[in-house]
């Protein structure tokens, strides 16, 4: 004798599906329309080159040093900038955690994010330029004989990435740091561990999963650098990042297919790095960073 079959909506509810589930539809449509569709459109477009077979764009990219070098150039900017931002964020966040006026400092640090890269780039251009305040001051005090070149090269882009990227990594890191129960460090101290050892054996392992996420997000931000690479860098040479060649392909040569191929390669590099980071993260402890049942 079989049990009476429940009506369909009751059976669906067993799986967590009911009328409330319908509320995800706008979100799903949004993601489909603005993310999934453009992505696959670009992917398909990249396999439809203006000339040659379906892989012609990719073959062209890897045949011309002028194009494939951009991966290396971009990584050479994005990786150090990301690491620098995250490595700087940790000690600053550890210190800020103890401050009472945290909100003021946090506000000051958030300002560069709200200003946007272009405005920061414009500001840096004047400030760091050969006739900017910095160089004038250095010359005035005789610290240098000729103006230091800090813009229209690698360092200009680097500085801009640190200024706009640091607040982002700092805020993320701060939230991870404040999630760690201060009693854990105290326990470490009472057990004889000095600050370095406490950092290495208690804080760092508990922070590491969060830092992996921070690294991944900061890397994506830095890898897609565009405005500052043009405004503050040397877009014809040392800071000829991958987004510039994608732009040129699309809007100077009107080769959308090639531009899509470059964009796909950008995505592939980012995906590779993020996969590596997240794979490393699975090896780490990911439980709550506090203790006890509370």
């Amino acid at each position, binding site marked *: 004798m079989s049990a009476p079959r429940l009506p369909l909506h009751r059976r669906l509810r067993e799986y967590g599906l009911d009328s409330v589930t319908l509320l995800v539809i706008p979100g799903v449509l949004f993601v489909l329309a603005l993310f999934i569709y453009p992505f696959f459109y670009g992917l398909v477009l990249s396999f439809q080159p203006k000339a040659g077979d379906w892989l012609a764009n990719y073959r062209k990219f890897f045949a011309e040093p002028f194009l494939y070098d951009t991966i290396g150039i971009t990584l050479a900017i994005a990786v150090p900038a990301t690491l620098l931002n995250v490595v700087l964020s940790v000690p600053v966040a550890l210190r800020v955690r103890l401050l009472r006026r945290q909100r003021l400092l946090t506000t000051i640090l958030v300002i560069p994010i709200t200003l946007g890269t272009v405005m920061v780039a414009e500001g840096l251009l004047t400030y760091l330029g050969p006739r900017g305040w910095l160089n004038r001051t250095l010359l005035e005090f005789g610290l240098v004989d000729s103006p230091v070149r800090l813009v229209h090269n690698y360092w200009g882009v680097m500085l801009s990435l640190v200024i706009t990227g640091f607040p982002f990594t700092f805020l993320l890191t701060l939230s991870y740091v404040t999630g760690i*129960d201060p*009693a*854990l460090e*105290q*326990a*470490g*101290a*009472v*057990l*004889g*561990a*000095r600050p370095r*050892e406490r950092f290495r*054996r*208690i804080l760092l*392992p*508990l922070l590491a999963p969060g830092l992996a996420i921070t690294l991944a997000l900061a890397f994506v931000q830095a890898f897609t650098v565009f405005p500052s690479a043009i405004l503050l860098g040397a877009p014809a040479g040392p800071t000829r990042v991958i987004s510039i060649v994608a732009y040129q392909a699309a809007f100077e040569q009107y080769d959308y297919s090639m531009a899509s191929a470059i964009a796909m390669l950008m995505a592939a590099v980012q995906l590779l790095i993020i996969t590596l980071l997240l794979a490393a993260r699975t090896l780490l*402890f990911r*439980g*709550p*960073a*506090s*203790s*006890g*049942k*509370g």
Partner: protein
Amino acid sequence: MAVVSRDFRELRLEHVSRDFGQFHALRDVNLTVRRGEFVALLGPSGCGKSTALNCIAGLLQVTGGAIYLDDQRLDELGPEDRGFGMVFQNYALFPHMTVRRNVGFGLVTQRRPRDEIARRVDEALALVRLETQADKLPGQLSGGQQQRVAIARAVVVAPPLVLMDEPLSNLDAKLRVEMRAEIRRIHSMLGCATIYVTHDQEEALSLADRILVMIEGQTRQIGAPEDLYARPETIDVAEFMGYRNLFESDAETVAGGLAVSIGGARMIGTPVGAIGARATVAIRPDDLRLTGDGRIAATVEIAEYHGRDFYAVARMDDGIELYFRSDTRIAVGDAVRLDAAPARILVYAA
């Protein structure tokens, strides 16, 4: 790199104070803890007892006075150099380390050889009966087990002094009584001096050799549990030690004690300190006996059944409430007669 010697005679707090801005969390606290002694810091929440413990541990700087371990001045050392064991209120177990590595942490920072660490961690885990849980993470343990790990981690380094900050407050009532016995067992096995912070007078009475009652950052009384229970020196200590019946009365010195008036009845009490014409009378609910010929007349207003006995509130003719305990069934509205022995009626200056 002054690591404190394992063996010691006494820990002394001399005029220790700690201010937070304008707030005096700790004022002129003096205490001597001898080797092997179990001392409880007892007081209501916010009285400064945890501040005192953190000052001893080195987690807080003192703003006045000094702390000595025998002849060595401690308050200028960081927590790393004091070599004490500490059990935190929320246990503060390292969530990313196994039980074994948590317990071994203090030995690793001392750079002990690997085989010595393994042996001593095993001993400590056996002491707290957690041998079978050694390779679990703290998150996989129950509250009581986490508590045991915290104790093992604190005692494995053979510290001269173990500090415990309300270690049982996160446990349920049954477990609390069990762990209390466990702490006493471990203390008697290891014999390490212990300073134990609690707001639970029952815990302090049952565990400690001596109790320091702290109120508003000041020491109110230091003494053996029996003394504190039977003869609190001040009215606020009496209140904290469970003398729930507190009321004002006229006082008159007579042969055999001090005559006070309780609900119109003239009773003989025991004076604590010098008493003027007005006094405060303190009686424990347990010390009020329900007898037919009792001199205090009252009417029961609240009666709570507590299993073996009743806790009740009765109002006397003059409107004052009396808390008392009864072995026999009583009901709201009953007219009762109560009495108390002179030694159990404490009289303080008003």
